[in-house]
């Protein structure tokens, strides 16, 4: 039981929740990674609007770096076309749907926002359908 219980997954999830709670409690901001990234890249922002977003992304990369190296085996020779189409779909989808796993899935559901509940149910279902098709018909 204890060997199979995903305690690291739970611990990591709790950390993500704490991170979102901190940003909301102190700065009043949603820890939505896609929104933070796109606002930084595509929207003209004032100095302070830009700097907190930049600080968050630097932190995100730094926090990941501190926990490296990872223990899992790296995926090799995954079809490049899948990676490119995936990036495009994630980019377009999270922009027009106003959020990704973090903004809708973690922050929005925490705030019990109806939009986020619907978005999360939709991208989960769509992801499950995609993987099911990928596994059974492509390999």
């Amino acid at each position, binding site marked *: 039981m204890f060997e199979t219980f995903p305690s690291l997954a739970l611990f990591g999830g709790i950390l993500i929740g704490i*991170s979102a709670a901190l940003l909301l409690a102190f700065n009043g901001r949603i820890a939505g990674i896609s929104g933070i990234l796109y606002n930084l890249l595509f929207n003209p922002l004032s100095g302070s609007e830009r700097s907190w977003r930049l600080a968050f992304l630097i932190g995100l990369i730094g926090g990941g770096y501190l926990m490296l190296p990872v223990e899992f085996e790296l995926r090799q020779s995954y079809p490049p076309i899948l990676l490119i189409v995936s990036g495009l779909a994630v980019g377009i989808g999270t*922009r027009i749907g106003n959020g990704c796993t973090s903004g809708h899935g973690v922050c929005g559901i925490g705030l019990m926002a109806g939009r986020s509940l619907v978005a999360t149910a939709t991208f989960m279902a769509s992801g499950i359908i995609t993987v099911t098709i990928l596994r059974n018909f492509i390999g």
Partner: protein
Amino acid sequence: MKRIIIALISGLIFGAGLVISEMVNPVKVQRFLDLFGNWDSSLAFVMGGAVAVTLVTSRFIVKRKTPWFADRFYMAVKTNIDSRLILGASLFGLGWGLSGYCPGPGIINAMINPAEAVLFLPALIIGGWIGQRYSA
């Protein structure tokens, strides 16, 4: 300055959480989404743990009139469920399933699996730009 430090700390904890929980492993993410195949349930605990924390804390946080270091809460403006939300979330799910990357883990994978990130990340940014044009 206070807000920048909070954002940095928040980002640090978020990034650490993504790596510790193995959300940054796209193979594991795809197995998590493989509900009708060889399902790996462990990542449900990542979402579950994160949402448990935000569900409990958010109600206390937004009870206050303002955040500690800012003049107001910057919440989403939109509250309606429209076709753009559904289309966007569907496209996102499609992309998430195709590679196993969502935006945060995609960014962190620049340090873990650069051979994949060099394809995924530019496509993500171009996709975001296209979405932005479509939004305007």
